[in-house]
């Protein structure tokens, strides 16, 4: 079931949570809504579920308008950040809940319910905990029960609100992989909210990056990572070095340094973002962006991390391969130049981005 979001607007008092958001979730895909807290991602998810009412706009399920349909009739599965398991019911009764509250006509028989619940518990590999109460479970177990509960009613779409947010790093990693595999198995249209870019990039088919109630960029994880559409996306997706300069005759110029830049119009004020591993260190100033004094060398692990201090006091982070580092033979205190292998340039005079 595809989901279409058209011109959705939502305010809470003076706070604009969503400002004219448009988005299509394709049938069967696993989509991540990624952004910092307060960007509107959870509000959007709750509007899709029907837990929140938009001030304007439409939500379509499979082409059919569901904007005014009550949450109980939307046939969505929703996994809450803090699980929201019914604390007074056993795991079995939790998973069975959605089936037992069906109107008598469409309610399955007790045997059918039992079978379905046990099947789901096997799917999440927790059938041995059927008699337990939620407080007796670990965080990861609760999360999986919450998922089984939401799947019991055979939802048309699955919505997950920060599904791994409250778990420790190790469990989170396991569950992430498990969710990916589960999705590959059941192919249910799924949307999950996260503020963790690594999680979004690793698990999802497509990522939606949001900020201040706007969608900044939509795309496959590799697309977004390689070609961020705005300074915000660039910064949000990982460590990045920032260079202020201008674009002139196919050159990005920072002070005395210039680097060739193709396909970019002239601009008096421009920002160049370069990830640490996209920077090379060189002993010559040719095509470099800046110069700095080597301050720290962290040589633990497969990459060597360098910190170069510029004359104005700012620091440039560089990640080099072990081989390249050995080739250069750098020592603390040396003067070196940084040359970008790949950079994202944004004009600041023409854009309204505020960083």
């Amino acid at each position, binding site marked *: 079931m595809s989901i279409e979001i058209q011109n959705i607007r939502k305010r809470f008092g003076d706070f604009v949570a969503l400002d004219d958001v448009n988005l299509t979730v394709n049938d069967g895909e696993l989509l991540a809504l990624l952004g910092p807290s307060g960007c509107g991602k959870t509000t959007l998810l709750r509007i899709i579920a029907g837990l929140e009412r938009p001030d304007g706009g439409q939500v379509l399920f499979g082409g059919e308008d569901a904007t005014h349909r009550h949450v109980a009739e939307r046939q969505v599965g929703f996994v*809450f950040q803090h699980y929201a398991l019914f604390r007074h019911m056993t795991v079995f009764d939790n998973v069975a*809940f959605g089936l037992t509250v069906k109107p008598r006509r469409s309610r399955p028989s007790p045997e059918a319910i039992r079978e379905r619940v046990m099947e789901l518990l096997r799917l999440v590999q927790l059938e*041995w905990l059927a*008699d337990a109460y939620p407080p007796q479970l670990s965080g990861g177990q609760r999360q999986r029960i919450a998922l089984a509960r939401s799947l019991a*009613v055979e939802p048309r779409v699955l919505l997950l609100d920060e599904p791994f947010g409250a778990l420790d790093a190790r469990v989170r990693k396991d569950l992430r992989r498990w969710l990916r595999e589960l999705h590959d198995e059941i192919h249910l249209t799924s949307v999950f909210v996260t503020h963790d870019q690594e999680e979004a990039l690793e698990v999802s088919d497509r990522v939606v990056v949001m900020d201040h109630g706007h969608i900044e960029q939509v795309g496959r994880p590799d697309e977004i990572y390689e070609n961020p559409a705005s300074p915000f996306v660039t910064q949000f997706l990982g460590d990045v070095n920032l260079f202020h300069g201008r674009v002139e005759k196919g050159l990005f110029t920072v002070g005395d340094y210039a680097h060739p830049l193709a396909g970019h119009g002239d601009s008096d004020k421009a920002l160049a973002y370069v990830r640490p591993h996209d920077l090379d260190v060189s002993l010559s100033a040719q095509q470099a962006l800046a110069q700095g004094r080597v301050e720290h060398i962290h040589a633990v692990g497969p990459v060597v991390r360098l910190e170069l201090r510029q004359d104005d006091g700012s620091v440039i982070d560089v990640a080099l391969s072990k081989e390249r580092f050995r080739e250069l033979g750098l020592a603390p205190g040396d003067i070196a130049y940084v040359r970008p292998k790949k950079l994202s340039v944004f004009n600041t005079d023409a854009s309204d981005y505020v960083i």
Partner: protein
Amino acid sequence: MSDSYSANAEPRWVRWLLCGVALAFVFLFLLIPLLSVFQQALAHGFALYLTALTDADARAAIWLTVRSAAIAVPLNLVFGVAAAWAVARFEFRGKTLLTTLIDLPFSVSPVVAGLMFVLLFGVNSPVGGFLAAHGLKVIFAEPGIVLATVFVTFPFVARELIPLMQSQGADEEQAALVLGASGWKSFVRVTLPNVKWGLLYGVILCNARAMGEFGAVSVVSGHIRGETNTIPLHVEILYNEYNFVGAFACASILALLALLTLVIKSLIEWRQAREQNEAAGRVQLARVRRAGEHA
């Protein structure tokens, strides 16, 4: 356990002192008065005790008390749940005012509350006059007693539920709705079971106060023997007439009712704990079995 070091373990004499003070208070202010009620009631034998209780006026007082509690408690139960639901789940204008108003009966002296009803519903007031003209006597009659009882017991259920429901949050109810439950089903199957202990406690307190209320009821009752005397009022009258056996016999009924509610509460709590223990045991067993299978 007592040997293991713990950061908040106080010296032995501090623990003994604190326990001693608490126990002495319980003994002096709760146990001795309670025992003396029964001792006084039975001072002249069981037969006299029974006679005092089966006296027509005493029986009327007991029934009146039970009747007014039976009306006031369900009314406040419904109101309390509705108010707690509204305050804990919704944001609306005047919410602070509502929570303040719920507490009003606690801050107003019961006598003032009674007086308020006399002024509002007395035969000389417009409302009371209108009702009297249509054959409904409120003040110095049963409706007045019920009204006063409802007023003074107003906050009990709501005050128990509001903090509980606020701390539990609305997540579970929303989960129920997403799973297709109607609002009513979500309320019956999720909200109520989650607040049942708070609710029960509120009802017990509400009931105890409804049966024991003196001040407000005293003002509106008119003290007509066999008609508008509740147990507390009847106790006072008997005591003033130096009928100590009668007074303490009726007082013992109130005390017994209080003890009974406490016993019921402990019973339910005990059963609940046993159920959870059994469940915990089953989970433990499943864990052990699973570990065995994987070994």
